[in-house]
């Protein structure tokens, strides 16, 4: 098999795995958002002990490698009776990991809503729900959206980690191809890079466009200056 033929063969072999990569990312994203929501609430409203725990959790995730989390979930937890499939372990790990980062985004978005606006809404006699819907969410989402979109890209890129627990995603499929045919290592690596570049570069540009569009004028990095 020569150049182009090999290339197409590898591409054909890796296509289903590329779909798996996308699916893992798509499933992990809402998982991460759920984690983020659960962690962010006590970080915003100070609740003794629970708030401290939530802060520690975020710090813990931010200072320990994702790879180690995955090893812990997949290799260590079975010894205390929690046994999960590789792909479940992967989705769980990604959700727990990226959720902590998203929590930072959500927290910043919450703090981007000026106190004065919230008080003004109260003075106007808005109910909590109306206040949330008409005052807080429109502003907070605007601040959070670029960060959340970015975390989606992060998740997609982080899925390659799942290859170490033999989830057949795009990066592991190249190992499988090599085991089967003892060839195509360069071709498959180029294809993996192409996959991420084709998705990542436009997505990155989109996120930067979102950032530019949604930055609240004049707020700079100190959202409190909005009024």
């Amino acid at each position, binding site marked *: 098999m020569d150049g182009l033929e090999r290339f197409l063969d590898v591409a054909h072999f890796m296509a289903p795995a590329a779909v798996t990569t996308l699916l893992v990312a798509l499933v992990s994203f809402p998982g991460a958002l759920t984690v983020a929501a659960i962690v962010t609430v006590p970080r915003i409203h100070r609740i003794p002990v629970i708030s401290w725990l939530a802060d520690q959790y975020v710090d813990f995730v931010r200072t320990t490698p994702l*790879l180690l989390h995955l*090893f812990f979930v997949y290799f*260590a937890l079975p010894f205390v009776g929690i046994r999960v499939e590789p792909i479940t372990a992967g989705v769980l790990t990604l959700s727990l990991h990226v959720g902590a980062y998203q929590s930072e985004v959500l927290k910043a978005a919450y*703090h981007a809503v000026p106190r004065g606006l919230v008080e003004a809404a109260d003075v106007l006699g808005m109910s909590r729900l109306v206040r949330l819907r008409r005052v807080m969410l429109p502003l907070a989402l605007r601040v959070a959206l*670029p960060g959340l979109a970015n975390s989606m890209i992060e998740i997609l*890129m982080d899925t*390659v980690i799942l290859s170490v627990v033999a989830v057949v995603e795009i990066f592991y499929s190249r190992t499988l191809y090599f085991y089967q045919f003892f060839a195509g290592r360069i071709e498959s690596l180029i294809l993996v890079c192409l996959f*991420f570049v084709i998705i*990542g*570069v436009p997505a990155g540009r989109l996120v930067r466009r979102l950032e530019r569009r949604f930055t609240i004028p004049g707020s700079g990095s100190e959202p409190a200056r909005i009024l």
Partner: protein
Amino acid sequence: MNEQDLQRLLGYVPDLAGGLFYTIVLTPIAMASATILGVLFAIGLNAPRRIIRTPIQWFIEVARSIPELVHVFIWYEAFAIMGLVLPAIAAGIGALTVVFGAFLGEVIRAGVLAVEPTQWESGQVLGMSRWTIWRRVILPQALRTVLPVWSSYYISMYKATALLGLITVPDLLFRARGLASQNFRHFEIYTIVLVLYFIVGKASLAIIRRYERRLRVDVPKSEELTLLRHPLADHT
């Protein structure tokens, strides 16, 4: 905990200490070279000629959209196939340098934009060469401005060094896998290693934050700078 447990735990110490050494030493080395590359990128991105700027822009965009693990294998595996066999540790540091250099290049460029344009003119008036202005006037200010973002990348780098364990660099994660495969006490070993990572990470963060406070300068925040800050950076 009885005598036997204690014996076993003490048996981990040499391995884990060796791994910890690698993990602690790799981070500043890789971060230093990534910062140098980042500065070069930033200078290149500021070049008057488009022929210099555009390729760098493309390179940065491509490099940052490829996962770190893939970068590591490009350096370790693909380079070896093409005839350039690097020791695992060199390949690892090279890969991390490129990834983080790309990110830092954009960050530092934003820092450069935040420096008052009059600083350039003042340098010229004093008869400084272009290179001297960069080195003595622009970069010191730009780097201080981006310090908070730089530190969150430092912690990212600290986490990313764990990937090198996969290409046989004997860091903390690599040793943990080795120990666990000997005695099958995965839970115990991975818990210890997670705690070690957490302690070292928190300590590094505390040390960086202290230096950050000492070096902090208040520069008017340009719009560009807020746009390019680390999207996942901490907002504390």
